[in-house]
């Protein structure tokens, strides 16, 4: 036995509450972030990811308080992302208690930010979030990087982009299929496998989980190192423990 595949509940946070929507629309309230974080920790979550989907900067301070509160009570790795623009944003989140910070749009606008942050704080705490959308046509499958919550095409080929981020020192990649996010149809397994096989750093599969088999597929067929999901946990459909027991029954090594 060796390294376990990780199960990571994701909490989308706005105005101090956890919410869940389909493709960033129709947000529903899912509860208090600290309470939810504690529950997932007790259920055996391997890490937690907080994604700040707040649009206005004046509400950003709320997230720092949430991170502080969670970090004082929950002793597993915390990743925080959403709206991270500068090395100072990264520093503030780390000081609040985040263990890793995920960078998305800002990495596309300024790739040197990734190099700067990994040099300053270490690769272990810099996650690059890649939102990828399938490009129609062509013989081989291709994906393009999107920014601004999946609304804006960047022109970057997703796989090339992933390789470049690895070169700049990213510690891992949080890979979200924009085609699948919020659909509950399962991960884009072709995308996940292409990334995981091409990169030497860990890849977290995200976007589209609707049932337990999707998570198993992400690991076995997608070759992901970790799987991230939100909605299947938030409404109590499945506990983290149920997810892990299901994965274990399919021969996947998990921390139980």
């Amino acid at each position: 036995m060796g390294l376990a595949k990780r199960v990571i509940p994701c909490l989308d946070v706005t105005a101090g509450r956890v919410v869940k929507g389909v493709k960033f629309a129709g947000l529903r309230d899912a509860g208090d972030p600290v309470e939810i974080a504690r529950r997932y920790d007790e259920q055996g979550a391997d890490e937690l990811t907080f994604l700040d989907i707040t649009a206005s900067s004046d509400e950003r301070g709320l997230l720092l308080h949430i991170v502080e509160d969670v970090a004082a009570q929950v002793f597993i790795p915390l990743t925080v992302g959403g709206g991270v623009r500068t090395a100072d944003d990264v520093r503030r989140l780390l000081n609040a208690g985040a263990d890793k910070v995920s960078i998305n749009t800002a990495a596309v606008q300024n790739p040197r930010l990734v190099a700067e942050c990994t040099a300053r704080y270490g690769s272990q705490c810099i996650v690059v979030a890649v939102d990828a959308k399938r490009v129609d046509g062509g013989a081989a499958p291709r994906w393009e990087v999107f920014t601004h919550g999946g609304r804006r095409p960047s022109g970057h080929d997703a796989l090339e982009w992933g390789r470049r981020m690895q070169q700049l020192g990213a510690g891992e990649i949080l890979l979200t299929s924009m085609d699948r996010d919020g659909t509950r149809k399962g991960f884009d397994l072709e995308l996940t496998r292409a990334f995981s096989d091409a990169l030497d750093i860990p890849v977290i599969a995200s976007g589209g989980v609707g049932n337990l088999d999707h998570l198993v597929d992400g690991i076995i067929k997608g070759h992901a190192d970790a799987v991230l999901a939100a909605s299947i946990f938030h409404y109590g459909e499945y506990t983290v423990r149920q997810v892990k027991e299901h994965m274990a029954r399919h021969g996947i090594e998990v921390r139980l």
Partner: protein
Amino acid sequence: MIDIAVIDYGMGNLRSVAKAIEHVAPRLGVAVTSDPRVVRDASRVVFPGQGAMPDCMREMEARGLRDAVVVSAREKPFLGICIGLQMLFERSEEGDVAGLGLLSGKVRRFHTGALFDAQGNKLKVPHMGWNEVQQTMSHPLWDGIASGSRFYFVHSYFPEPADPRIIAGCSRYPGSFACAVASGNLFAVQFHPEKSQAAGLRLLANFVAWQPERGSRAGAGRQPVADVNR
């Protein structure tokens, strides 16, 4: 009076370490400090580290902390974490940099692209996530923690002690590597107890309560380890 000094040399985030220690020892004074005098005066010392070892060595030296670290590692309960473990050895492959030389041996890198699991899938570097730790000696810091418990790791380099008798715990990735070492009043781990939930908090609580036997010293790893066996 500071009970526990967490040494801060500007590399990475020490908040998690301090918070976890405060959680298991709410009545003790915990200081995150870069002041060598505070480190010297503290009853116990935690020596964490993140990022790249050459940067860690440079920043530690720049703050005049070397002597305080070396003296503490020889004299009082001392816990190295992650790069804080690696820096105790003589040398690291990372930047081919010299460490503090308190333990004999070197720090080596996992070979990217050359590691595969039993299913033939590529193993990633950094080694990131929860891995099993097999305890290879009995030690007060393992009290109440089952051998084989999982701890959270994130690292690309691992220690290779010259004296296998100081190895207190091993993990597999996919080959076996030392992830915990013990010598006298010194204990050091490659994983992150502060991020390893119940098992990690127990290890920190054990450290806070640990009373190493007098006269046992971390003598560059050459001392017999019988005095830490119970």
